[in-house]
């Protein structure tokens, strides 16, 4: 259970000191709940992980329920705006301009932030970003009894795994968004960009709160039931004592405005405002692609984002700040601009469209694949269609999970239709598939390992040789009947599963049965059979035309 106290002088009535906890922490004494063991990048390839996730019936029910609800809501609030398509076009064009001239906008942003009194740091990768934040935090907490920070929900800090870097440095990072809190206390990883605990239902949340809250602060009420309002209230009580003593807060930013040096955080609960307002120091970790050119551009994005993400006309709270303000909120402000693979994405003239993303999660919510398997199967903090195109670009295609991600889609294109900044997700998935295949060709090690995965390109190559010449094709077809028709007969109208290696193809597909005769044969001999359906059909059409 709980043991060593790291903070000596807490009175029995005062706030509880930080403790080192080993319960459910893989046998290690920690300040914060341990996430699952292992690195995300070592996750199994998507098909394998998907099979694992599909075996969780409660999760599947939770996801189906939630995704159906939010899709309907989104469609309703989007239909309210006559100019939704104009907004999308504007959002796409503005972000496209940012992406294509990112160096210019970043330099402008740096100038504006600095002028407003915010200190700007740059980080090439996750390790550098973490080092900058940890150093800033340790310096500011040197005389504080509580070695801790409060956090606003942020994808960038999840991506760089800042919480673990802080834990390693002896600082507790408390997630304050309700869903992030559920994931953190549940020793879990987020499974959705917007609602990270969407794979959990109220009963599971109650269980997590009851078991874990007391280890890390104010315990859940003894009589806590699973009503969402009471669960939300338990999180209010648990976090309030942390907000009241917070010295350092860490946030991300939804938008960073180049012309004014304003940062913007969009949220619902007010936990973001607590962090942004009550702490003495605010450190914001911002991906370099988060820039928008002007303050006026926010009129586009603050219409697109809430309707696409929480499916509301507006989210409850949006905070905009332009450096420190005398007598109001943190006086010590820092921004860490993080690359961490974004310039890899930028270097691909096709793939760079993915950097327009404003992390709304609409593409997850409409994705039939995501709805079935949930976010954990993607082995990345970015799941769903955007994750499948972004992750292998950010991290590269060296790992088996990253190589599998572009194939985690049926290419139905629903994501293209909802994306508020018109990222052509389906096209990018195809593009990434091509890149994965090319990279495998270039890598002998991968080729040797991935025998089965290479069957498809080899088949395609021989098929293209065959199709490219009419004589070869005729010869291959033989006379009038097809091999399929001859050999397989007409038992059924489609192929079922075939043995390996063809099972690679047929496990996920029904292939129509090969017809008895070839089209060419049928076409040449169609006159021999006046009763042939095709001719009758043609004749009746001619009759109609008259």
């Amino acid at each position: 259970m709980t043991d060593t106290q790291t903070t000596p002088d807490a009175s029995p009535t005062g706030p509880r000191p930080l403790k080192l906890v080993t319960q459910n922490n893989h046998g290690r004494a920690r300040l914060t709940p341990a996430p699952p063991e292992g690195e995300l990048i070592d996750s199994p390839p998507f098909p394998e992980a998907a099979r694992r996730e599909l075996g969780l019936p409660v999760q599947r029910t939770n996801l189906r329920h939630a995704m159906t609800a939010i899709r309907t809501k989104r469609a309703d609030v989007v239909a309210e705006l006559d100019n939704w398509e104009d907004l999308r076009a504007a959002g796409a064009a503005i972000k496209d301009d940012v992406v294509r001239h990112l160096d210019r906008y970043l330099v402008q942003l740096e100038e504006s932030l600095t002028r407003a009194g915010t200190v700007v740091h740059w980080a090439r990768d996750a390790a550098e970003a973490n080092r900058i934040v940890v150093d800033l935090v340790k310096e500011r907490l040197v005389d504080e009894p509580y070695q801790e920070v409060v956090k606003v929900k942020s994808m960038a800090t999840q991506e760089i795994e800042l919480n673990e870097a802080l834990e390693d440095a002896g600082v507790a990072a408390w997630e304050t968004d309700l869903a992030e809190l559920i994931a953190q206390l549940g020793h879990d990883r987020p499974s959705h960009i917007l609602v990270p605990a969407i794979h959990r239902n109220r009963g599971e949340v109650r269980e997590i709160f009851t078991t874990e809250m007391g280890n890390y602060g104010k315990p859940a009420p003894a009589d806590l039931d699973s009503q969402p309002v009471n669960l939300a209230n338990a999180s209010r009580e648990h976090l309030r004592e942390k907000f009241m003593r917070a010295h350092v807060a860490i946030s991300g930013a939804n938008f960073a405005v180049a012309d004014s040096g304003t940062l913007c955080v969009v949220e619902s609960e007010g936990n973001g405002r607590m962090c942004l307002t009550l702490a003495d120091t605010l450190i914001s970790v911002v991906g370099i692609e988060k820039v928008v050119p002007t303050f006026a551009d926010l009129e586009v994005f603050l219409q697109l984002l809430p309707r696409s993400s929480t499916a509301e006309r507006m989210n409850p709270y949006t905070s905009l700040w332009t450096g420190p303000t005398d007598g109001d909120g943190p006086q010590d402000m820092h921004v860490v601009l993080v690359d961490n693979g974004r310039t890899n994405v930028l270097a691909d003239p096709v793939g760079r469209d993915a950097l327009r993303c404003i992390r709304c999660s609409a593409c997850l919510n409409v994705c039939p694949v995501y709805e079935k398997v949930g976010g954990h199967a993607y082995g990345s903090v970015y799941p769903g269609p955007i994750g499948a195109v972004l992750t292998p670009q950010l991290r590269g295609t060296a790992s088996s999970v990253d190589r599998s991600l572009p194939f985690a889609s049926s290419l139905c294109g629903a994501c293209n239709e909802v994306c508020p900044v018109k990222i052509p997700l389906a096209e990018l998935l195809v593009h990434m598939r091509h890149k994965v295949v090319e990279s495998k060709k270039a890598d002998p090690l991968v080729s040797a390992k991935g025998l089965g995965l290479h069957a498809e390109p080899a088949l395609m190559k021989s098929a293209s040789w065959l199709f490219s010449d009419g004589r070869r094709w005729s010869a291959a077809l033989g006379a009038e009947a097809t091999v399929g028709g001859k050999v397989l007969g007409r038992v059924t109208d489609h192929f079922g599963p075939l043995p390996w290696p063809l099972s690679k193809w047929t496990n996920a597909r029904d292939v129509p049965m090969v017809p008895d005769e070839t089209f060419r044969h049928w076409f040449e001999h169609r006159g021999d059979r006046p009763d042939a359906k095709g001719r009758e059909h043609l004749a009746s059409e001619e009759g109609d035309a008259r």
Partner: protein
Amino acid sequence: MSENSSARDAVLGRIREALADVPADEPKTSQWTYGRPTAMPDVLDRFVERVADYEATVVRLHDGSDDAIGRALVEGLATIGVHDVVVPPGLPQPWRQAIADAGVEVVDDDPPLSRERLNAIGGVVTAARVGAAESGTIMLDHAADQGRRALTLVPDVHVCVVRADQVVSDVPEAVERLQDSVAQRRPITWVSGPSATSDIELKRVEGVHGPRTLYVIVAGRP
């Protein structure tokens, strides 16, 4: 510092290399016209309807005089059952007086209260900067009549007076009105209903960390 500047140079260098195919002087492609009003039958009606949609209480007051606002504030605080409120230093004096005269304890945030003290106070009364009808959003720029950000965050009840001439049709007009505030580097907070979460089963629950009760008085004629 030198490490930081080398990281800066490295990141900007990578970006420039990655964008070698992009002409520096290519024209912008956005066709968007900024600051346009959204057409609607009645802006104030829409504002009242949309704010109320978020489970906030909205009172429409055609008489925009300080006396009338004072009476509406007293009535609102009584309805909610708040016995003490913090007020920003620039709240119009007649409003403050009316509340105090009604027997509600008025605590001035001057000098600024500690967060613990703020946490123990029942409510806060403020003015606003802009209202956006279509999205039902109240925008604060934390001027003297609204107070610093913690005031409208920590207490559990927020009573907010929005004047009719502050209400515009939609977000684009509102953002335009906020240009002065951002030029002065004021912090800005948009409030659309009381604090809420949909994090459990996507079921919206009013009230987590911010004020769980939002009471809005829309005062005067446009």
